[in-house]
């Protein structure tokens, strides 16, 4: 119970990461008070850089942490540092941005499934098919590639769908808004927009500014997205779905680390579902989401023990 856990985070520049840091602090502070763990420090580097994060992990090795909980900037570029940590006897648990190093644990989210689910939902809502616009994330990252792959694979199954445009919105409302606004004039009527989270509101704004009818835009659990959806629903019955990883997944990873340090036998891959918001759960989700933040769920030790038990 005197073990030390570190959180290595590579970016702090959006509400998801901030909510994640907040969750981490809430849950770990309580865990320390409850003497379930000795220490749990959060470290952040700027600008999503694998090189800096690798250096950060190496520092954590020096600082003698027993486990490192890691949201990685790159699935492979940290493997060198992760291996060194493992060699030093440190448990490494990656989540969200996972690493491929075999010695590390992974709290995995099936990003391809996310993409497939989006298309499936649209297929249900739009039996006649139509044109789709894809708003991607940050070019050159693996999460972007995975989600996009899921989307494209699934669209193959529905010949009535056609992806007529694809832009990079960098998971940011303002960037998505700009990119979508730039291609809209050259696009035919759009029936649905597949997104990657954090970009739905910006996309909606771009459609509104261009005076085009609102397609079904898949949302990404941000508070502004959900409240826009709610408002539209009240006005004209607009319905969509929203999904994303809960930032509280960091706390899940934390408890996984704690369990591993406690000597429990934990499989290398722990899979977690998305946090999905539907029309039915929308009001409830909005109520529990702080203004300007993102829908979240903090995990408790009991939650995690249950998940692990189920996994066996």
């Amino acid at each position, binding site marked *: 119970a005197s073990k030390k856990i570190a959180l290595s*985070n590579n970016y702090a520049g959006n509400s998801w990461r901030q909510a994640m840091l907040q969750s981490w602090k809430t849950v770990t502070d309580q865990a320390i008070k409850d003497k379930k763990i000795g220490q749990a*420090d959060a470290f952040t580097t700027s600008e999503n850089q694998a*090189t800096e994060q690798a250096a950060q992990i190496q520092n954590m090795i020096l600082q003698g942490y027993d486990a490192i909980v890691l949201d990685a900037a790159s699935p492979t570029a940290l493997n*060198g540092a992760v291996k060194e940590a493992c060699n030093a006897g440190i448990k490494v648990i990656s989540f969200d941005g996972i690493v491929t190093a075999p010695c590390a644990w992974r709290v995995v989210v099936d990003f391809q499934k996310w993409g497939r689910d989006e298309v499936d939902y649209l297929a249900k809502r739009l039996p006649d098919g139509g044109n789709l616009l894809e708003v991607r994330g940050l070019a050159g990252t693996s999460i972007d590639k995975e989600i996009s792959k899921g989307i494209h694979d699934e669209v193959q199954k529905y010949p009535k769908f056609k992806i007529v445009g694809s832009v990079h919105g960098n998971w940011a409302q303002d960037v998505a808004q700009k990119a979508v606004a730039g291609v809209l004039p050259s696009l035919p009527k759009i029936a649905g927009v597949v997104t990657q989270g954090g970009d739905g509101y910006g996309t909606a704004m771009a459609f509104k500014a261009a005076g085009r009818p609102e397609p079904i835009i898949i949302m990404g659990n941000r508070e502004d997205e959900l409240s826009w959806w709610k408002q539209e629903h009240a006005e004209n019955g607009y319905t969509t779905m929203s999904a994303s990883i809960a930032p509280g997944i960091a706390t899940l990873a934390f408890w996984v680390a704690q369990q591993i340090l406690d000597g429990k036998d934990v499989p290398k891959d722990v899979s977690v579902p998305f946090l999905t918001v539907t029309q039915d759960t929308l009001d409830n989700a909005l109520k529990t989401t702080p203004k300007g933040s993102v829908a979240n769920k903090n995990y408790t030790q009991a939650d995690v023990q249950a998940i692990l038990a189920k996994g066996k």
Partner: protein
Amino acid sequence: MTRLFARHRILLPVISLAVLLALTFWLQPRAMSYFGMNLLFNLAVPIALATVAQMFIIKVNDIDLSIGAFVSLVACLTATVLVQQPLLGVLALAALVLAYAGMGAIVRALELPAIVVTLGMSFVWGGLALFILPSPGGESPEWLSALMSVKPPVLPMAVWAAAVIAAVTHLIAIRSGIGTVLRGVGGNARAVARAGWPVVRLTALAYGLAGLFGVLSGMALTGLTTSAGADVASRYTLLSIAGVILGGGEFVGGRVSPTGAVLGAFTLALAASLLSFMRLSPDWQIGSQGAILILVLTARLIFTRRGATR
């Protein structure tokens, strides 16, 4: 005292590094070991190489805003083409060095502002990198990873590498005849031209050397991280500029120090580690990097100013 600093510009980077190192050892005694030093410094090696590359550009009074993107591109090539088709990979890397030299020739011959040309080129390198490696991955060649993780006697790889880089670049940039002439171009291009030297070709040479060290930096980075990504080194542009300045270099006048540049890069890397050992609140972790940069540079400028008015 101040005269001493003015004479031996290298003292200041040495002292900054020593002070930071002492603080680090004090905060984290475990760092004071073969293993610890390696962890502290091995990722500074590619930064040091990129800083040296930047130094060759600053040496001829220009500035390079594309080195970070360039190093990323090299890393992508190294982790893909160089593994799959070694010969093609070597040719591609050589072509990149030539492209850098060409960039220098164009900048000088057309008298274009280097800052703009390199800004444009940073998009080009970045685009090519995305083209080669649309998402992070690839795998570093075995020999390269092995080379970057050797365990030499007495001191860890990073320290030996720093010594070798400093020594080699010192030989090229300071000791060799042609390096001396290159520094002359930065100091008084007119005098060099008067003595009959082709300044455009000299500039191309300086850029070519920068390209060469950029290539080495990308390869070292790939060897350490064992894979690559299209923006893996995008921070290197600003880090390398800061490293050259921290190492006692100046933006104009051909006053640069290769040893200082290596030390500057190591100082920057160490400063980041020191901050993480201080366990600041995550809110301030980014800001404190800026603050420490300002602090170290202020010290440097006080000394050089006093030195100038001696």
